[in-house]
């Protein structure tokens, strides 16, 4: 018995595989999903998503979105998601710095832009955290 996990972002289908467990960061804290979980619809926080398959754990950095558990299928809908191996630490650091500078420089930019930058900063932070945690 296994879960079918699918992570979809507006750009691509990031992850699609059968897994044993998945741990999702939600607004109320982390939720671990095992096969046979009750139907669930929840909001995702920026954070790390853990996937375990055959004893091997993979980490993914994920930004806000939604997750749905229905039967043995888990669908994750996120603005951004990236596998830990694919995170380029230097690129993320640079992006984080740029976004922070922009945030600091312009206080009166339009709220949407501000929101976008903030989310970028948080997502970058999460990516760095995920990348560095295993060292």
């Amino acid at each position: 018995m296994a879960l079918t996990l699918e992570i979809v972002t507006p750009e691509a289908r990031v992850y699609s595989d059968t897994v044993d467990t998945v741990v999702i960061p939600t607004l109320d804290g982390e939720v671990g999903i095992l096969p046979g979980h009750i139907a669930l619809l929840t909001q995702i926080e920026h954070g790390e998503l853990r996937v375990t398959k055959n004893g091997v754990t993979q980490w993914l950095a994920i930004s806000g979105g939604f997750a749905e558990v229905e039967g043995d299928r888990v669908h994750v809908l996120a603005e951004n998601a990236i596998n830990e191996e694919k995170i380029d630490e230097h690129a993320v650091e640079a992006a984080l710095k740029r976004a922070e500078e922009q945030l600091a420089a312009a206080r009166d930019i339009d709220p949407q832009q501000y929101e976008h930058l903030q989310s970028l900063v948080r997502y970058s932070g999460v990516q760095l955290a995920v990348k560095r945690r295993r060292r």
Partner: protein
Amino acid sequence: MPSTRDIRRRIKSVKNTRQITKAMELVAASKMKKAQQAALAGRPYAELMARMLAALADRVEESQHEFLVKREVKTRGIILITSDKGLCGPLNSNLFKLVTEIKTPAKYAVIGRKGTQFIARTHRALLADFPANDRTTFADIKVVAEFMVQQYHKGVVDTVEIIWPRFRNTLVQVPTVMSLLPLTDVKAAIAELHAATGTVPVKETPAESQMLFEPDAKVVLESLLPLYLNRQVYHQALEAKASEHSSRMVAMKTAKDNATKLLGDLTLEYNKARQAGITQEILEIAAAQFSAA
């Protein structure tokens, strides 16, 4: 018979036309590739989100949310996505045909100048118009979606529907109507989408009576709904772009082929006229020699 000079002039003009259409075809082809990629990559996201919402709408019993309550339809609100520029085959006129079939009173928010012109020309109620440039950004489209939702909120319109050229493949774009608000028939809309693309929807598990919502149904619904609407309209706009460029490329290719064919005919005619002229001259010379002898 037209003189050789006239034919030469026409050949020149047809050649110029062919040059232009060829250039436009190439431009459209390169833009199409990008637009198609963007549209197709976003499709799973849009569909998954719609499915999630359908599941949610099914299970929230106290459907007090105004987006979920069906009201008496007096005026339909329609978002019409067209292109800014012409020369893209029957793309826009097919959309307009669909619009003329709508007999019930409706108000329109239009993306793209072609659509604005059409709505104004046919004296339909135009609520707002937005430009459709080549770089469709989420922020641009969000404005349109939010504007329409506001109109719905205020009661100016009683539904929000969207008409766009659905991208099936490079040769086929189908003008499609999909209803966004109220959300009561999300499921039907999704089923239609699947039927249209020919994809098989993921097997539905029997709707369990219980579903857990975290933090709770209302919060999830309230954050998912606006996102869904914005994303949906954005996705449709991307598809419309892909359709536009595909349609333009095909139209330009046909124009180029026609010009090439015409050029062949004209060249033949030109050569005939030239030959006739030469024959005429020889005849005259021969006749002159004959009479002098």
